[in-house]
Each structure stands twice: as C-alpha cells, then as structure tokens.
C-alpha cells in the first residue's frame, strides 16, 4: 500500500527532489523540512518500503572522519515521478485556492 502523502511527506519529497544529486542524510532532512526526528524517520521508512526511496551507508573511515558513517537517502526513479506528480497537484490546489490566473482544473490539465 503506498504511503499517505501528508504535508510532512510532501516536505520530505520536496527536499529530496530539490537537489540534482538528491542525496540527503537524516539531520540534513530535519534541517530542511523542519520536521522532528520522531516524525521524519517513520516517513523515511514508509517511503523506502514503497520503493520511492533508497538508502545507502556512507563509505567513510570513522577514525579519519572523527564520526561513524551516515546513512544517505535518495529518491528512486519511481519516487521522483511520484514526488513531481504530488508536488504539481499541491501547486495546482494552492493556486486554485489563491485564485491565481495560472490555476488549471485537474480534469482539463
């Protein structure tokens, strides 16, 4: 079952979509989305389960870096498509709500 796209999920998708490389670690996502860790990590797990997100461990020498390796997240091609679609829908809804001239009815789009 695909995850419910709430406003918090949209924030995470937007943050991951914003950059070309699209790789982010947890603290970075918290900083960019303003979400607390207790909200962010369940979202990341649900997105990963849905196949929209892929995670990998950072390859770093803990002694040289002075810290353990982090876990990085990036959108899969499916995730990119979903994120673009959901963000476009949100933009249309916001534009319609604000009565902006560019607002297009979804059926006519």
């Amino acid at each position, binding site marked *: 079952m695909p995850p419910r796209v709430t406003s918090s999920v949209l924030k995470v998708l937007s943050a991951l979509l914003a950059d070309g490389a699209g790789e982010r*670690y947890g*603290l970075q996502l918290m900083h960019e989305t303003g979400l*607390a860790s207790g909200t962010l*990590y369940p979202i990341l*797990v649900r997105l990963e389960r849905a196949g929209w997100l892929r995670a990998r461990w950072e390859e770093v020498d803990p002694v040289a870096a002075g810290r353990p*390796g*982090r*876990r990085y997240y990036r959108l899969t091609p499916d995730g990119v498509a979903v994120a673009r679609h959901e963000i476009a829908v949100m933009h249309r809804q916001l534009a319609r709500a604000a009565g902006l001239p560019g607002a297009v009815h979804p059926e006519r789009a």
Partner: protein
Amino acid sequence: MNRLAHRLVDIAARRWPADLATDLSREWHAELAALGTRSVRALTFAASLALSPAVEAAGEAPYGWRERAAAAGRFAAVPAGVVLSAGALFDLVHLLARYALPPGRVPADLLLLTVAAAAMAALGGVVGARYPGRPAAVTVPVGLAAYGFLLAGNRVAVMPFMGWRDILPGVAAWTVLTSVAATVAYRYAGRRRVAVVTGLGGTLLALDAATVCGSAHAATVLHVDPWSAPRWFPLALLPGGTGGHVPALLLGNAAAMVGPLLLCSAFVLAYTVTGPTPGRAPRAVGWLPAGLGLAVLAVAVRPPDGDTFARLVDNTTTFGFGFASTLPGRTLLAALVAVLAVRSVAVARADG
C-alpha cells in the same frame, strides 16, 4: 547529557520493528556523533525519537499520532459517559424523591436508588461482556472523570465543601479502594457468587472510606464528632432529618459527592464480574459526521429561558451539571454524546 541522548536512542530503537532496529540504531548513533558537543540538539533529536510512535511493522496499517489521538478520544468517551450517566441518574432519583414522592418515604428513596444502581450495573455488564479488561483499567479512568465532573459541575458553589480539598481525597480514596476491591473480585472470576460478595463488600467499604475522606474537611469546620464518621455514608443516602447529630450540611454535601460514585461502583462491579461473550468486534462506522452534525445542532440550539433550565444547571436543583450553562461545556457534552452514539451504533451493527 550526550550519554542520556544515546540512551534515549537505544530505548527508541527497541520499540521499532526488529528488522529495522539495528540499522536505525546505528544511523541515529551516527547522527548523534556528528552533532558532537551540541548537546541540546542531540537531546532534542533523541527525545523526539523516544517519545514518538514507532513506525508500524511492514504490511500493517500506520499507527501514528492521528490514530493514537482517535483511540484516546474513543477510550476517554467511555469513562466520561459512565460518570455523566451516574450523575444524571442520581439527579433523577433526587428530583423524583423531592418533587414526585410524598415526604418521609424512606424505602421509596432507597428503592429508586437501587433501580438506578441496577441500571448502571446492567450497563457495566454490557460493557464488560463486550470489552473485558482488568478492573483498574476501568476504575482509574472513571475516577479521573469523576474528579473532573465533580469539580466542573461545582462552578456555582451551592455546596460549600466541594472544592479540590474535599473532592480530591474523596475521589482518590474511592479510586484506590474500589480498584483493590474489584481486583480481588476479578481473581474470583471463576466463582461468580464469591466474586459478587467480595466485590460488593469491598466497594461498599470503599464508598464509606470515600465519604469519610471527602467530608473530613467539612467535619473539621463544622466540629462534627469524628467517631460518627463511619455512619456518614449510609446517612447521606437517607432523606434529610434522619442524620441525628450529624449536620444536614455535611450529609447533603457528602450525598452530592458520593451519590454518583455509588452508581459508578455498580458499573465497575458489574464490569468486573461479567465475563467476555464471544461476538464480532465492532467496527468503526462512517456516521461520525452525522453525530458531529447533531452535536453542533445541540450546541446551536439556544437553551430555553426561564427559571426551570437555570435551576437545572446552576446546581440548586440538580448537582454536577453546572458546566452545561456554558457554551464550551455544552459543546463537550454534545460531542461526547455523539461519539458514544456512534460507538453504540457500531456495537449494534456488530451484534446484528
């Protein structure tokens, strides 16, 4: 402080599904290490994980804050409904005894109270058969709801000894001792007669103790003989003039407090001794919008003017519903009735 943050992350990881816990624990510890000496940020990061709901296991429906809030609301509606029903029934007994029955008819007063207790016991039996559980799990929420009800209902202080220093010890004694009595009865669940007798004796003792604790402040102010304390509970349930040397003020005060608790005891006892009955689990129904619509309508309707309604809600005729004179109070009451109505429909559908 950093050690505390790492400890909180360990606690959080243990609550997450086993297939994720190891990786996430490693990831969170890595983020804490990256935060280094910024201990407040590290502690906030760890505390949020420790206090927030863990993600559901793969294939399960999400159970986050929204679902938790809905479950808490459904859970809180039952004890609130029990206490309001007990308060309304006790007031009904009081009104009938005062206006509909000839004076001095002691057995009729007690008969009405017995019928009200039987009604609450029947309700407890129905709830106990449908949602069986440990006695303390129902007694403590009912005690909390009773504390709120007795304080909220006393905004107009016609009863002089119904402040927190009276209600808190009374309701606390009732909650603790009724929980103990119900737990003992619960242990005899296989021997129904023994369970009923021990539960009944224990809850009556709990009510007597609650009356003493809840009236101690009044007794001190009114200089009442403390040796008469064990008799305050039975005397409080009898009509005025039967209390001998105990002031009517103390007995009336005690009756307003312990009367609804007596009916709550009947509910708890019946809930405890009734075993579960097999049946389909009730499912949520999509009637909530209709119920909430009714609630809004109930709030929007202006209460009738005049003395009758005013006397009903200002505690001079009935006790405990003073909050119904304010819009927030009526809103809460209407929302509670809507939630309970929706749940009743769900149970009826499951049975049908």
